[in-house]
């Protein structure tokens, strides 16, 4: 059963990519919706299977690592697979209504969407360094394609910038992979770890980790490598922005985090860990500050992503040479942050898209007086904002709580300040939007009400991110599941 689920998980998005490639937008939408159902069910099934039986390694083509490629199907991975299923299906559903079916080039949205999804699944499950590279490229190129889809100069400009950054990041990562392979002769992360457990660290291998993390940080848009992100996320169509912000940046971070957690202890050092943390903190402050100053709604949300990504990189200092419980707390906190940010940011972008549709303008000022019409989307936007501000009971809050605990537990109290200040700064830009919407204006007399289905989706996502805090213990418990069998090196 589990094997079928795995095959289904890998097959469905690729197959649907091909299927939808052959259709026009309207048919593609219909087929996609069927596919979404299939994929969600498969993801859910896998998640249930893993949470019942524990994780396992899945050798593709029947070959085991290091010769073949093994997928690492553990609690964390399936959680992210499920998360992807939720967010992507929301975005897919939303896009089906949101995107103008009359433009012929929009038919290509669906195949790119499905390729993106398959790339994401490949990254979550990947246990092979090179395979992760291919997965990353799959994600990057489909994401760039989505940003550029039928775009004007602005979108092209953003997508070129995005593409170049992504390519540079990939190359840095690949260089790291090359060094690792030269050093250890294997591409399996588990294999490297296995070897390092019993042998002294060979000289010169720190660079590999540094290169990989740097490359991934560039792809994740860590400050000061973030400049490509806001234009790309801001200018894309809202469902695309949602996918990019919610999932795509997380994929590269996920790899970086995995590498750090597995290899950071032997190959990393304290200064690097603190440096990454510092950059993350700078991202939080700088991203929030810039988000406060944006005039366009989606740019605010995009810069908010820069800031929120900063939180993720606090994982590095908080797991380096600290006690086991602190490491666990930090890991759990970051996991929750990833999940809640994914849900909240997707909700926010989708809601922002709806608002733009309603007001007919992408500017923040245009929200003036909108709240009189009680747009559902504004409410969704607000709820998602709660999670971004990491106020309870959102998942963001639970994440922040765990990170606070980890910082205090490790004695690195300076991150506490960062966390608190970051929360306040994010409140500043979220409330800026609220503020704009609460302003009464006599001029607003026309308001387009988007279809209900468009409005419900961000609401569901926002509620999920809000409610995540209440069930975070359950969610995290799946992560901690033991492996069914020890992975072979």
């Amino acid at each position, binding site marked *: 059963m589990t094997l079928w689920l795995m095959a289904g998980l890998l097959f469905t998005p690729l197959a649907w990519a091909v299927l939808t490639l052959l259709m026009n937008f309207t048919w593609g939408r219909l087929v996609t919706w069927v596919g979404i159902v299939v994929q969600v069910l498969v993801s859910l099934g896998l998640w249930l299977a893993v949470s019942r039986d524990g994780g396992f390694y899945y050798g593709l083509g029947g070959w085991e690592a290091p010769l073949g490629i093994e997928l690492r199907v553990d609690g964390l991975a399936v959680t992210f697979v499920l998360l992807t299923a939720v967010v992507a299906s929301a975005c897919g559903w939303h896009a089906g209504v949101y995107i103008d079916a009359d433009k012929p080039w929009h038919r290509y949205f669906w195949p790119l969407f499905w390729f993106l999804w398959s790339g994401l699944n490949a990254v979550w499950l990947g246990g092979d360094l090179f395979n992760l590279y291919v997965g990353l490229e799959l994600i990057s190129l489909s994401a760039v394609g989505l940003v550029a889809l039928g775009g004007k100069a602005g979108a092209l400009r953003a997508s070129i910038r995005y593409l170049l950054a992504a390519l540079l990041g990939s190359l840095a990562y690949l260089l790291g992979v090359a060094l690792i392979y030269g050093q250890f002769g294997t591409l399996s992360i588990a294999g490297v770890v296995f070897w390092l457990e019993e042998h002294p660290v060979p000289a010169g291998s720190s660079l590999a980790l540094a290169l990989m993390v740097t490359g991934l940080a560039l792809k994740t848009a860590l400050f000061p490598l973030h400049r490509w992100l806001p234009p790309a996320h801001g200018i894309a169509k809202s469902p695309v922005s949602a996918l990019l912000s919610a999932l795509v940046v997380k994929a590269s971070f996920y790899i970086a985090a995995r590498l750090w957690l597995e290899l950071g202890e032997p190959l990393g050092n304290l200064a690097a860990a603190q440096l990454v943390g510092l950059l993350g903190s700078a991202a939080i402050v700088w991203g929030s500050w810039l988000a406060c100053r944006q005039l366009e709604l989606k740019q605010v949300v995009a810069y908010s992503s820069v800031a929120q990504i900063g939180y993720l990189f606090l994982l590095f200092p908080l797991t380096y040479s600290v006690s086991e419980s602190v490491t666990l707390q930090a890991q759990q906190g970051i996991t929750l942050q990833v999940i809640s940010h994914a849900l909240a940011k997707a909700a926010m972008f989708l809601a922002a898209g709806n608002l733009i549709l309603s007001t007919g303008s992408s500017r923040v000022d245009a929200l003036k007086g909108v709240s009189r019409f009680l747009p559902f989307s504004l*409410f969704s936007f607000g709820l998602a904002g709660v999670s971004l501000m990491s*106020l309870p009971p959102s998942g963001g809050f639970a994440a922040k709580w765990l990170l606070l605990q980890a910082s205090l537990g490790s004695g690195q109290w300076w991150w506490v300040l960062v966390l608190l*200040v970051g*929360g*306040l700064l994010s409140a500043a830009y979220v409330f800026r939007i609220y503020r704009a919407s609460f302003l009464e204006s006599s001029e607003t007399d026309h308001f387009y009400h988007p279809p209900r289905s468009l409005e419900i989706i961000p609401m569901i996502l926002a509620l999920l991110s809000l409610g995540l805090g209440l069930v975070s213990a359950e969610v995290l418990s799946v992560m901690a599941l033991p492996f069914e069998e020890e992975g072979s090196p």
Partner: protein
Amino acid sequence: MTLNTWIPVLALMTSLIASLVIFALPEKGYRLRTAVNLGAALLKLGLVVVMVWGVFRGVGYGVSFTMVPGVTFVLKADAFSMMFAGLSAVLWLLTTIYAVGYLEDSPNRSRFFGFFSLCVASTMGIALAGNLFTFFLFYEMLTLSTYPLVVHRGTEKALKAGRTYVIYTLTGGAVLLLAIAWLHGVVGDLPFREGGHFTGSDPDIHRSLTLIFILLVAGLGVKAAIFPLHGWLPQAMVAPAPVSALLHAVAVVKAGAFGIVRVVHDVYGVDASSALGLLEPLAWLAAFTIIYASVRALWQVDLKRRLAFSTVSQVSYIILGVSIFGPVAAVGGLVHLLHQGIMKITLFFCAGNYAETLGIHRIDEMDGAGRRMPGTSVAFTIGAFGMIGAPPLAGFITKWTMGSGALAVNMDWVVVVLVASSLLNAAYFLPVLYRLWFRKPAAHWPHERQWGRLETSAWLFWPPLLTAVMTVMVGVLASLPFSPLSWAELIVLREYSP
């Protein structure tokens, strides 16, 4: 899960679900919205009454589950939470009635009532929270749900006030979060427990505990409007009257004060707090706030702003009460939680009536309003005298109990503070009353509206009168069982002899 675990959840859910339903209702659905509002309020009141009776007999209501690893979400009904829950349930009902009348024909009513219910749900959560973590959860929820109410008017001024409010409260929330997280790191998850946790605690952590206490008070003090963290409160006056009433009398400031009491009584424990030397400075701070805010109130010409400063002053009574190390004073402080709520909501209702019926906002416009609106003015008079501490009204019971308590532990200066505050209260309320009753009215009211038979709309007329009657009753009947005073005595009895 038995019924007893469900009742607190239900009490919380009544307003939460009401809020969601109201959000979903169309703006025009006036009758249905009112019905939902009042129905939920009545249901909640019923549940609270059931719980009050149960808690009195010693039944435990509660539910808990692990929320974040290492932290539990706890809802629990004890005597103190029932005090706050009872207050919010009763006053919610009245404020809802009032708000229905107040917002007649104004825009954005669905939004208003939705957030209004959400706000009450948060208050309920704060009341029923069983540990600091859960408390914080609802505490922040309250911040968020009140923001739309503060800025409801949508004017620049309102938004500015809203911004101030948010900056203050969120910063306070951040500090509070830090403190709670730190405390959690030092000693783990602590449920609220009568008598606290730190009596005879390890001396090694005393330094941390002291610092955490300061942070906790600083975080909670923002909402409780302790000097110098009170700046948001007078500004928040731009909100519609029911909101001001709710902010000042029930939800926000009380949440802060309630939290401080929780920290002193049920987390640290009075003995431990006192042993750590934390209570005396807190008492001085509260005393200073009482006097300072009263002095500031003297110079306010806007009626609601004057009331706001009065709130700042009065809320610190609660804190003063609990920071006096003695049971009687604690009773005084706790009982003021209710008394101040009832009295202040009366005043704000009345202020709202003047504004809505006659367009009066400033004190110098109030000349002779007593003849035009006798019912409202009687209520206002009762509320004002209550604030001054004139017997036999609610305020007197507070002051008397607190004074007795302070004397019992030889803190005579508290009596001086109480007297000075009463004098100042008299100094800023009596002139208002004088204008109300004994001045000749101006030729025209600033903006008069007519409502048939009564002096104002019936929705607006009865709530202040009811609360005024309550102000009298809780004072006169203070020694009845289930009166606020008796309930506070019950709480303190359980607190001091756990």
